[in-house]
């Protein structure tokens, strides 16, 4: 089974192609050099050509549904939906970017907290319990400030690993606040990679799951600014 994984939720546009438990090819490009909106489809084309495969030879597409950059997610989902619509037999799976990030630490028996830091003072997070061959989500996806997140985590009283690019600046604050041991992985590799998305898609395929391409939507976790302002006004009245 060959699965194409697509992530365009961060500034790294990341593609991966796997076959069962092997990586066939991986493609990461920083949007600083090539905008994701420009590069995504040509990159898929180049990547497939590189391994001598056509879209028709793929068994499914897994796409990151977020949380992450709203525009980035829509580009990824738009492309993935288009590809699957045009190739009617091609199943589509939506994968959370936080699952994909936690997947980098698969096999580590610990609590794992993947973090995606947005430009605002908001943090996308979730907490997983890592087992030998599993990742169980124990705190659901959320968009909050660091204080709210830490309040939830400190209840757990177990060793926890934070993973996410750019979390160094929070390290001190986190350590002061928590009662438990905390490890920090702030690495250029700590982003939701296309291959991880693909592996998680394969798991869904094996479970017999499949999304409806008509309705699959991003996991925004946050309303638009205009909606929030409007709701605030309504409640004040």
């Amino acid at each position, binding site marked *: 089974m060959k699965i194409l994984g697509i992530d365009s939720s961060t500034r790294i546009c990341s593609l991966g192609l796997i076959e069962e438990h092997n990586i066939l090819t991986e493609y990461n490009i920083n949007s600083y050099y090539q905008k994701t909106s420009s590069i995504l489809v040509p990159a898929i084309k180049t990547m497939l050509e590189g391994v001598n495969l056509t879209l028709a030879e793929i068994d499914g597409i897994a796409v990151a549904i977020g949380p992450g950059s709203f525009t980035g997610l829509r580009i990824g989902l738009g*492309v993935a939906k288009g590809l699957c619509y*045009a190739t009617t037999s091609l199943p589509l799976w939506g994968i959370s970017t936080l699952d994909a990030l936690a997947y980098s630490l698969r096999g580590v028996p610990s609590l794992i907290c993947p973090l995606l830091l947005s430009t605002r003072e908001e943090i996308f997070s979730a907490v997983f319990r890592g087992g030998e061959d599993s990742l169980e989500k124990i705190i659901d996806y959320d968009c909050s400030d660091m204080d709210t997140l830490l309040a939830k985590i400190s209840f757990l009283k177990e060793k926890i690993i934070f993973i996410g690019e750019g979390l160094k600046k929070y390290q001190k604050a986190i350590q002061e606040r928590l009662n438990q041991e905390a490890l920090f992985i702030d690495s250029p590799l700590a982003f939701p990679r296309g291959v991880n998305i693909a592996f998680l898609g394969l798991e869904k395929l094996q479970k017999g799951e499949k999304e409806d391409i008509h*309705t699959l939507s991003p996991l925004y976790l946050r309303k638009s600014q205009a909606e929030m302002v409007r709701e605030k006004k309504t409640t004040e009245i």
Partner: protein
Amino acid sequence: MSDLILGIETSCDETAAALVEDGKKILANIVTSQIKIHQKYGGVVPEIASRKHLEAIIPVIDRALYTSQKKLEEVSAIAVTYGPGLVGSLLVGLSVAKALAFARSIPLIGINHLEAHIYANFLAYEELVPPLICLIVSGGHTSLVQMKDFGEYKLLGQTRDDAAGEVFDKISKVLDLGYPGGPIIEKLAKKGNPLAVNFPRPLLNNDKSFDFSFSGLKTAVIYQIRKFKEEKNVWKVEDVLASFQRAVIDVLVEKTLNAALAFKIKKIVLAGGVSANKLLRKEIKERAKILDLEVFYPPLPLCTDNAAMVASAGYFRLKDNKKSSLNLDAVSRLPLGRKKY
């Protein structure tokens, strides 16, 4: 062999897909509008628009294929609007279009939204050919363009501030009348006296350029409304609206006719949402007739944003062998007529 083009349009708040045969025959023209959602905010909220586009895009394309009784396999090319417009919105249609073109190995044709509006006229009038003077006027645009030939444009002038339709929207918002302002104001203005208030006709006198400017007029109208309210005079909102509409139409008509005369072009086409305004249509037609000029405007469903016009423009571009690359990006301020395509 006929050419079947799938057109996709998501530049503002309408998600649209259409199937057009040989650039002229509309087999399906599906438009879903988000107006009801944006009404609450008094205007289009870009982030909400982008979200709604992504939800609607596949169902709308599916509906267009179903309505036309065609399969995607029969489509010869994908034409998609890549600007001008809201970037987040444009990217939804563009991403899907690129994926469809790549997956089907068929050409992708990026279309300028303003050019597409002009093509609404070619869909409606079989015999119409350039050269033309085009007035493209909507909630997002006010441009006067000389179309020398198919695919060859010269921008003569455009708004320096607000688009004409935008001013209708803003005045409607000030008066709490609803969104979009155009049709609402047009209806109320019918019951008003267009000579009640003498609003300025911006850039009309002593200005040889074909540019427009409506923000001063907007301020004058809003100021007048406040003044009336403060002075507690007896005044009718319909009179203010009729006078305002009159001022906008005077400017649009005058500049367009001047352009036709200056460039010795006999045919004028109107395009865009504001070209649905009945008074504008009537006025320009009557005045053009005196000058021996001909005026064309699309039927109402083709005035506002739709994908049939995009597909039609795409067909002519395809005939000209002008295809886009798969790395085409959305351009929010894409100009029309600054360069030869």
